[in-house]
């Protein structure tokens, strides 16, 4: 009996450790970011157009960095939504057992490639191709970063979207076919709407992955902390900024705190993405009458 209680206690502690880590990270971020907000002010930090952290009169405006993230994430969404949702629909609806047996593991392997490999590939292969193809000064820009991030996020989108399609009861499909609908009508008018919020969840989680991705953008996005005017401009997304500058920022300096503040902003953004995804997917299950 005591043994049983001991195990119960151990597993409870293990399970709740993630809550502990989450709280720990949140508190650390807040505490370290606070001096930044106190000295510069939230509005000037978020709305400031200039990121000159090492000038003699430094300026800590993260608008260019945020826009860098926005451009790259939007670009990635343009790649990973059609690729991810399209492959999910193909695997679910059209693929035969052989195609499915090939595609599913391939997509999972794609998800397992370390991000540095994507970055490396983007830098060495994609960037020169983009540069030559568009005839622009550098291939290390938001466009190339979007492509790489898009491909990276595709497996996430695909596998979650496919799960959403699998949850749609096959009785809906049968009902539709029995009424004389063809496969295409059934897919567009019954299956996709029924899986709609699940697919939205997939897209949001894919984008949340793209926002938080660091290594690839650090290597491929070009690293210019200015407000981008086109998709072919080099950018410096928030994640890349932290990764690039943390090593050189003096501990305890304003720059150091500014990087923590960027981390906090990132955390809040991905947190919102995840909450929205959770709400949508819960509504989805309720709507299909599946309970929580």
């Amino acid at each position, binding site marked *: 009996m005591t043994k049983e209680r001991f195990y119960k206690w151990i597993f409870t502690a293990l399970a709740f450790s993630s809550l502990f880590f989450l709280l720990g990270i949140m508190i650390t971020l807040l505490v370290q970011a606070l001096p930044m907000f106190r000295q510069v002010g939230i509005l000037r930090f978020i709305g400031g157009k200039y990121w000159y952290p090492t000038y003699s009169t430094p300026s800590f405006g993260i608008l260019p960095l945020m826009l860098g993230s926005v451009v790259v994430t939007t670009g990635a969404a343009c790649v990973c939504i059609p690729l991810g949702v399209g492959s999910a629909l193909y695997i679910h609806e059209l693929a035969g*057992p052989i195609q499915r047996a090939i595609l599913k593991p391939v997509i999972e392997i794609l998800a397992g490639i370390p991000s540095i490999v994507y970055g490396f590939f983007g830098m060495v292969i994609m960037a020169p191709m983009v540069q030559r193809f568009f005839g622009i000064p550098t291939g290390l820009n938001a466009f190339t970063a979007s492509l790489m991030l898009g491909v990276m996020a595709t497996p996430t989108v695909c596998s979650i979207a496919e799960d959403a399609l699998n949850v749609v*009861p096959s*009785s*809906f499909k*049968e*009902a*539709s*076919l*029995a*009424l*004389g*609908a*063809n496969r295409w*009508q059934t897919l567009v*008018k*019954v299956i996709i*709407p*029924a899986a709609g919020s699940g697919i939205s969840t997939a897209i949001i989680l894919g984008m949340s992955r793209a926002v938080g991705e660091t290594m690839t953008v650090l290597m491929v996005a070009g690293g210019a902390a200015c407000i981008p005017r086109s998709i072919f401009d080099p950018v410096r997304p928030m994640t890349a900024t932290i990764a690039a500058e943390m090593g050189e920022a003096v501990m305890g300096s304003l720059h150091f705190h500014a990087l923590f503040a960027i981390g906090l902003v990132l955390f809040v953004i991905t947190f919102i993405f995840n909450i929205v995804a959770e709400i949508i997917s819960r509504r989805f299950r309720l*709507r*299909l*009458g599946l309970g929580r």
Partner: protein
Amino acid sequence: MDSDIKIRAENVNFYYSETHVLKDISLDIYANQVTAIIGPSGCGKSTFIRLLNRMNDLIPGARMQGEILLDGKDIYSPRTDVVELRRRVGMVFQKPNPFPKTVFENIAYGLIINGIRDRAFIRDRVKQSLKKAAIYEEVQNRLNENALMLSGGQQQRICIARCIAVEPEVILFDEPCASLDPISTRKIEELILELKKDYTIVIVTHNMQQAARVSDFTAFLYLGEVIEFGPTSKIFTVPEKKMTEQYLAGRFG
């Protein structure tokens, strides 16, 4: 008598990959009559009914031999338009399966996929179908609610209305009351008796009393074979085969 035959199955054999599920089934289904298919679980009754609108086409590795004639034409001939066939032969499933859409959209679905755009016509047909399915009174003020919010019995009648809306000639009921309470079951049975004026009805049921109450003809299937087929009154009172008698008496099944 022959002109009254709506569907004729001739020497139908059906296999799920290696398993021989239906063995040499020959059966006539008469127009504007209710034909019940009874038998213990796993005897192939659902498989048989799903051959009549080619729902089994979806099963990989399934194979069918023999002929099924609808108004004298083989529905398994390569020239058959499956979509057209399914419009003529509607189906109501074991578990109520309305779409996660509003009541109205559920009924209108079959019309819209058939390219009907005339809104007044659709509204009219939805109302008619709901009335025919004896559900109009209960849902007339809830047409814009999600159909999944209705009770199981109501959902099943919505499915019947959805089926009626495309004006089929035959309606297949695959154990339509299996998941319903006795009161809902009774409503569906009354409805079936009402519907047979306009439609040819085939109903699969494992409930013998139900078959006795609603059907004009009964086929008793056992292990994929038709043991006995004839007028319900005869099958239930003076069955020819010993096995039918035993099944009806509850000795096995």
